[in-house]
């Protein structure tokens, strides 16, 4: 086994040495500029800088090894994110026995999920949100289950399209949408709970509910 690992390492080094000057140029000009976004994604997946560093480094080593598969001028960012996501899953599976799939969601239909619930951001005062520190938001995002955290990061923070996210995490577009819907609702709920813990209660939300109740009666 040790010999096999050594062989793989030697082979990797050999492949790195064989990269053409053009491939090196592409690596530096198209792939390396994505390092900030990759690192941030890695950090939010791993929770710590050391693991994020390792993950980003592994991503770039893999990218360089398979650079002949990358088509110049195409979506370098999405390509690298896919490599990083796969590397993370491999590491994550090694470290944890927890499943990485949201099984119930794969079974439920998109429309059932999307339309079933909607957490209204407006239940909270806008000014309260503006007062929140980044740490609180980051903690709330990091507290989401990994599959939900991933789609929020890819869509709302990195600005990937549904199609790109679908390719990066290998799920159908409909599932991307339903997962995003649930993830945003969960996040809003967590932020609302956080605000409540700080003693903020939305009077407008309560008034609205009371009004709706009296209408029904």
């Amino acid at each position, binding site marked *: 086994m040790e010999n096999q690992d050594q062989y793989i390492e030697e082979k990797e080094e050999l492949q*790195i*040495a064989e*990269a053409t000057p053009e491939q*090196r140029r592409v*690596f*530096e000009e198209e792939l*390396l500029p994505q*390092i*900030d976004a990759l*690192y*941030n994604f890695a*950090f*939010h997946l791993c929770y710590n*800088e050391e693991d*994020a*560093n390792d993950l*980003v*480094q592994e991503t*770039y*080593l893999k990218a*360089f090894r398979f650079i002949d598969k990358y088509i110049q001028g195409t979506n370098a960012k999405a390509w690298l994110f896919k490599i990083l996501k796969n590397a993370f899953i491999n590491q994550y599976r090694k470290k944890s026995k927890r499943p990485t799939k949201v099984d119930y969601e794969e079974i439920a239909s998109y429309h059932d999920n*999307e*339309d079933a619930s*909607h957490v209204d*951001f*407006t239940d909270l005062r*806008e000014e309260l*949100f*503006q007062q*929140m*520190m*980044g*740490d*609180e*938001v*980051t903690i709330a*995002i990091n507290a989401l289950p990994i599959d939900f955290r991933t789609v*929020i990061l890819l*869509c*709302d*923070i990195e600005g990937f*399209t*549904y199609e790109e996210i679908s390719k990066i995490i290998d799920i159908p577009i409909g599932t991307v*949408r339903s997962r*995003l*819907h649930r993830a*945003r609702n969960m*996040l*809003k709920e967590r932020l609302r709970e956080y605000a409540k813990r700080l003693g903020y209660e939305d009077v407008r939300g309560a008034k609205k509910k009371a009004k709706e109740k009296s209408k029904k009666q």
Partner: protein
Amino acid sequence: MKAFGNNQGSDDFRRRMTLYLDGALTKQEEREFLGGIRKSPECLAQLQKEQSFREFLKKKVSRKNVSPALVKSIKSKLNISTSS
């Protein structure tokens, strides 16, 4: 063009609002959506609030700086000059 049944709480409105904010509507669908929104102040208010949530997330989520040591380490492993 129906204005989401004049209901900012309707599933159709929410679905289209999400697609609009995620940039997943076609130009034509976008025009129709915005046309419908103009007929409903409640829908417009809902859209603005959802927009502010998205902006809030982007603005508040912490972004870490990549250490120069990481870039150096990657380049070193790939035998790429670290002069740049």
